[in-house]
């Protein structure tokens, strides 16, 4: 799905039918285009504007962060070289290891819930014909809610006095303020509410691009529902799922807004994720240490992306 031998990709979403102009695109057609794509290095000129902007707002700040990480910064005019001290401090602290573990666990749970659930919802919508559009609009709604209001909506909902769910949750002993795993459950529910739409939309895009003939052929062969999913649908939505996986990984791994607003890392550090520690250092004006920490986080994310892309290319080769 990611790449053919020629090094370029055919993606599930890329081959989706274009609703207004049926018949404009199909896989064989695209494949022909791909073969025809001429080799021309002048195409770089078309990338220059985008690369310039990304360089200024992306690459420069990254280099700066990397540089700050080796300094002790009191003010911007009072900067001392400290070598790799910050890195050694952070990597050697038990708190860092514990937070890293919590963040990894949170990402694992978030992906483990949201990806299968999103695929299931997309499949459910696929069977709804024209109604699917309404389903897609529904699940996309949370994506347009201001991020800092998402925890507020949920805290309102579970408020034990006035919330729609509050009295019921209080009656069954749900105590998100002081019971660690209840806070976890709440943050996971909020995160799932926020991001399920992205998984559904992208999975639906991949699934709806599969011609009916594939499923009919499988039905004639007597394939089970699982076999159809495993051998026909899953390969076709792999490209869409890959981007979902990566986007959801980084966002859940660096979750801040929801986690901080809901319980600020509590109770007793049970939801103290990596980003909350970084937030504390920035608020405490400990910029050198914050930069070193940010560099580490970036490297962790980069390593995961790298491993993921390498594994995908390997599998496709």
């Amino acid at each position, binding site marked *: 799905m990611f790449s053919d031998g020629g090094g370029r990709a055919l993606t599930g979403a890329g081959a989706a039918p274009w609703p207004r102009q049926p018949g404009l695109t199909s896989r064989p057609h695209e494949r022909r285009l791909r073969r025809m794509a001429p*080799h021309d290095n002048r195409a770089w000129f078309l990338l220059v504007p985008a690369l310039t902007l990304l360089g200024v707002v992306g690459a420069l700040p990254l280099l700066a962060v990397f540089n700050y990480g080796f300094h002790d910064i009191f003010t911007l005019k009072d900067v001392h070289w400290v070598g790799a001290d910050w890195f050694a401090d952070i990597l050697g602290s038990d708190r860092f290891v514990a937070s890293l573990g919590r963040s990894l666990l949170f990402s694992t749970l978030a992906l483990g819930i949201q990806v299968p659930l999103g695929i299931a919802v997309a499949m459910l919508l696929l069977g709804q014909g024209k109604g699917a559009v309404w389903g897609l609009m529904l699940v996309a709604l949370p994506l347009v809610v201001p991020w800092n209001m998402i925890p507020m909506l949920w805290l309102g909902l579970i408020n034990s006095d006035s919330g729609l769910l509050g009295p019921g949750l209080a009656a069954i002993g749900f105590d998100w303020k002081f019971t660690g795993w209840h806070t976890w459950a709440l943050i996971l529910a909020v995160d799932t509410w926020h991001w399920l739409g992205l998984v559904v939309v992208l999975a639906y895009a991949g699934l709806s691009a599969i011609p009916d003939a594939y499923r009919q052929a499988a039905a004639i062969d007597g394939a089970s529902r699982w076999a159809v999913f495993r051998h026909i649908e899953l390969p076709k939505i792999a490209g869409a799922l890959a981007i979902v996986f990566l986007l959801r990984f980084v966002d859940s791994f660096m979750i801040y807004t929801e986690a901080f607003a809901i319980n600020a890392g509590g109770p007793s550090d049970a939801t103290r994720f990596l980003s909350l520690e970084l937030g504390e250092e920035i608020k405490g004006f400990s910029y050198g240490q914050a930069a070193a920490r940010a560099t580490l986080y970036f490297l962790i994310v980069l390593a995961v992306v790298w491993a993921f892309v390498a594994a995908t290319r390997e599998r496709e080769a």
Partner: protein
Amino acid sequence: MMRRLALLALAGFILLPLAQAVILSFTVTLPDVELAQGTVGLMNYSAVLADSALRAAMVNSGIYVVLNVVFCIALALPAAYALARFRFLGDRHFLLVILVFRVTPPVVLSLPIFILFSQFGLVNSPVGIALVHCLFNLPVAIWILESFIRAVPRELDETAFLDGHSGPSFFFYHLIPAIAPGIGVAAFFCFIFSWVEVVFARILTVTGGKPITMALQAMFGFQTDIGMVMAMTCLSLVPGVVMIWFVRNHLARGFSLRA
């Protein structure tokens, strides 16, 4: 039957928190001289619209989101065209680079972006926020537009050039109309990131130019009028809902990993 139940459960899950917000937004939540707590009506909305800081926040958000969408589409179109139509040295590396920028945690960049932008006078300015959001939206816009351009037969380009169209006039008169839905979808994804993002919106608006997200944040205090906060939140959903409505038939094109 099971399917219907599952769909109902999904709708309940998605709509419950929003329903809570809507209910609160129509309710008096702070004791008031004239109105008792719990009174239902439009007073929270009229209070929001009467507040000049909140009105200004809506305008600020609107300005940088529009700028961001314009920047992203303008820069992504040529890049997407190049990726869709040509092979060239380093094309896969380019895709990897934009993927890396897209997945860079915002909080990692917040400090140097602030320092860099303050040197260029881009703090408290909507242009600054619009530029920095491009880091996250430009890659997505490139992925989406590339898949739409690739679905357009190459013959379109060839006929246009045979007809004597130059590069720019081909882009405006042939390519853009042909991929209009793709531009809509790309604009939608840029919009939903830029409109609701908080990390950069916070650090780049120190004293002025506060967007909706920060204006909402500022409404929390010793005595928070949660009804008014929710009224503001509900109003902030309107542009997003309108965007969803416009792209509803094309949303399912999505985007996928290109690496």
